[in-house]
């Protein structure tokens, strides 16, 4: 693994070096500033940004310094540069009685606070290197390299998009270990696609994130249509990410998502619905590579059922940029056919032995272009049976109220401060708070 990874890095160097000298990032590809596609700050998309994504990141302009290399007999239209970007995150996390998944406040053997309850420096956590943008005529993509706990993780998507006048149609093939089943093509800021949300502390502010619906490993394909008002996508995926191969045969879990945009004065109201239903079957050691050599290889079936609604209201209210997002996850249930086949660290079938329900409302207002204030409310109900770990029962049930502010020092450099007050439903778990300060740099 180690040698494979480093050689892959150097393969990238050798293959793409010439391109790497030139213009990276979507801003570089289009020649447009970051806020052309982003609303309020660099992490959220506006309508232009949604269209850019739906174009398969293939949109180019006359503004930038990049030109295209066109084919003669066969189509090409490849940019003269390969676009590279880096995103850095430095975080300071300070909690007060923050609990783990079992409802316990972690302590040292001497009873001292550890982890975020002690105050945790995370420099540079969740940082990524992206190779992204137009790949050819009607084709674009995003390849992400991420380091996590010293391991190299690669994910990404390729999108074929066709401009049909006022709309785009296309399909996306994707594989991610982090961004969830909708990551092939999802462009609203309601948290269905992990990067597109309002708060950094996603587990305490967003229903799709808290319920683990809009995050996690997924490999799949989506077809989509995006018109002036309507966005619709159908797809199929397996809830795993393994670049070495997934032996799921012809099994896959279906997904669907529908959204309708309604302009109201100078605002846009979007109402959407989403659903997941089906079964996928694959080897347990493919599902969880850490089990390889630990347990005998056997097929395991994963059944998923999820559905919900989301809403987004964006625009100016009295010249103040406003973004309201609502997400309601009515059900997100995962069931394993045989949890004993997923024994890792003495835990049977976790965390797939799960069922959650959650609602969230997030609001951000920007009195100034560079400074915004935000508030969020989350209600989370963990209905999971947790058959093999009963101390997890209802441990995630909670109400959470969060406040925050974002300051864009530059369009690509943002300071975020957030504070969450959490009231767990279980009587034996105390209320807790979590403060987060984040520096995000993209270049």
């Amino acid at each position, binding site marked *: 693994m180690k040698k494979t990874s480093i050689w892959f890095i150097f393969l990238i160097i050798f293959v793409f070096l010439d391109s790497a000298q030139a213009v990276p990032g979507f801003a570089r590809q289009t020649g447009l*500033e970051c806020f052309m596609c982003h609303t309020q700050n660099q992490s959220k998309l506006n309508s232009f940004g949604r269209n850019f994504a739906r174009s398969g990141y293939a949109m180019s302009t006359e503004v930038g310094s990049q030109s295209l290399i066109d084919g003669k007999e066969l189509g090409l239209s490849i940019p003269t540069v390969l676009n590279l970007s880096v995103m850095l995150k430095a975080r300071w996390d300070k909690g007060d009685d923050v609990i783990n998944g079992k409802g316990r406040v972690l302590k040292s053997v001497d009873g001292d606070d550890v982890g975020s309850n002690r105050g945790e420096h*995370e420099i540079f956590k969740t940082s990524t290197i992206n190779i992204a943008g137009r790949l050819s005529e009607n084709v674009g993509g995003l390849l992400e390299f991420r380091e996590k706990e010293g391991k190299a993780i690669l994910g990404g998507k390729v999108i074929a998009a066709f401009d049909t006048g006022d709309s785009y149609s296309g399909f996306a093939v994707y594989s991610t270990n982090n961004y969830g089943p909708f990551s092939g093509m999802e462009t609203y800021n309601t948290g269905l696609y992990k990067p597109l949300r309002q708060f950094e502390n996603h587990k305490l502010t967003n229903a799709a994130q808290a319920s683990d619906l809009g995050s996690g490993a997924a490999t799949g394909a989506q077809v989509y249509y995006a018109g002036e008002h309507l966005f619709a996508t159908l797809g199929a995926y397996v809830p795993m990410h393994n670049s070495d191969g997934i032996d799921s045969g012809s099994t896959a879990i279906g997904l669907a998502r529908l959204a309708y945009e309604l302009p109201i004065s100078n605002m846009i109201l979007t109402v959407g619905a989403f659903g997941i239903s089906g079964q996928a079957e694959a080897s347990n050691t493919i599902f969880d590579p850490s089990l390889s050599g630990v347990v005998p290889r056997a097929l395991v079936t994963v059944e998923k059922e999820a559905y919900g609604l989301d809403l987004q209201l964006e625009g100016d209210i009295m010249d103040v940029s406003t973004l309201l997002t609502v997400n309601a996850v009515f059900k997100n249930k995962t069931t394993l056919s045989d949890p004993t086949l997923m024994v890792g660290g003495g835990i049977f079938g976790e965390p797939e032995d799960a069922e959650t329900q959650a609602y969230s409302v997030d609001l951000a207002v920007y009195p100034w272009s560079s400074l915004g204030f935000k508030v969020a409310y989350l209600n989370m109900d963990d209905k999971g049976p947790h058959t093999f770990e009963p101390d997890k029962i209802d441990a995630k049930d909670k109400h959470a109220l969060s406040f925050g502010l974002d300051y864009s020092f530059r369009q690509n450099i943002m300071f975020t401060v957030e504070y969450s007050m959490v009231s767990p439903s279980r009587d034996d778990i105390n209320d807790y708070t979590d403060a987060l300060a984040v520096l995000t740099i993209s270049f």
Partner: protein
Amino acid sequence: MKTSIQNLFLLSAILLFMLPESAYALPGFTRQTGKDCMTCHAQNMPKLNAYGRHFALSGYTIYNPDSETQSLIEGSEVALGLPAVLNVSAVLKARYIKSSRRDGLTANDDIVGVERGELQVLDASGLFFGGRIAENVGGIISLTDDSSDENDVAFGGKAVLSYPMLSGFGGLSLYSTQVNGAFSGMENFNTGLNSPLRQFENANGTNAAQATGVGRGPSTGLQMYYGDERFFATVGGVIPSQNNEGIDAGGSVIPFWRVSYNQPIGEWNVMLGTYGMNGKVKASDQSIDGGLIDNGALLVEVDKEVYGFDFEASGPIGNMMTMTTINVVTKNTVDPTPANLLTSTNLKKTDNEASSIEFQINPVKSLGVKLAYLDYTNNNPLVAQDYIESYDFDAYSVGLNYLARQNIVFDIEYTHNTVKSIDKDDFYDLYLSATIAF
């Protein structure tokens, strides 16, 4: 002798295959500024000259406004100043190391490791994303191979906020590194306080800050600095560890400082500096040792104290460029409580001191001849770390480096080590290395 020639041939063959055409192009900063490598580097990369220090103090934000491909994308309501190019560089290193130290015997008395002769191709190599990030902000991000068995890659770097002030620059540097040490947020002299900036490849046998561990190893910190042509001062706080997932040190960091004064005299620059670090950091053993926090963690306090001073003189003798660097580490102690719980480099109990002098002269621009002397004293003979020896020794080194191109350096170094405090034969280290940056 025959074996050595075979090894040299093998190294040459590998280097030949490694050399892509792009290796002849100029690396990231030269692309951004439009200036050649030696505008910033003295004698050979990566040693910095006065302009190189100036560029680093600017937060790597200086760019070429006349370049079409390196123009800036400006913001309208919120400032941006993003370069139209992300400058990526690769640094490839290939080394052959042979030593007679006889530490690497197996149970069958087979000689292994560097004692047998070790070819290290792509070790210490990496990708570097760097330069201007936005108006007043720059940085370097590295993605390198991790030498540990547990990890594939190490992700590190620094982000620098820099403003012109007085006759220089002032700013902040936030950094996290696996290898470059506590001062690496902003340190630009070639005395070894910042690991890449030294005269010899064989850091252990030639440089006091490197041999003691003061100028290398994992660090996460924040520095505030001011620097101009003559004066440089910085204060900061550091945790002698790197864990991107998080280090639960709370509000505890180890304060450090560094002051230097550089006097230009004709074509010469003469710098005298001093540095220190004194404080304690407290965090759970797993997080500061690179692991994950879980139940059963134990808080560990690491008390670190460092003092020293350094000197650098660079300028021509006749037409031959020279550089002399001196580093004296008068104290370097690391005292973890409870002791012996931590395994990471720079966190084990340490007590050492050292002094070194290094000199390089370039009779011609592409060829350098260098000498070094290191006197190392270990006051805690019980514990040895990866690169910190558990005995006293003197080391005498000679070397040559040759610039095939500004960005391609071949280096040969020989070090004779005289062990003083224990019964151990003198030994030699031979380093052959090639570094390519593109």
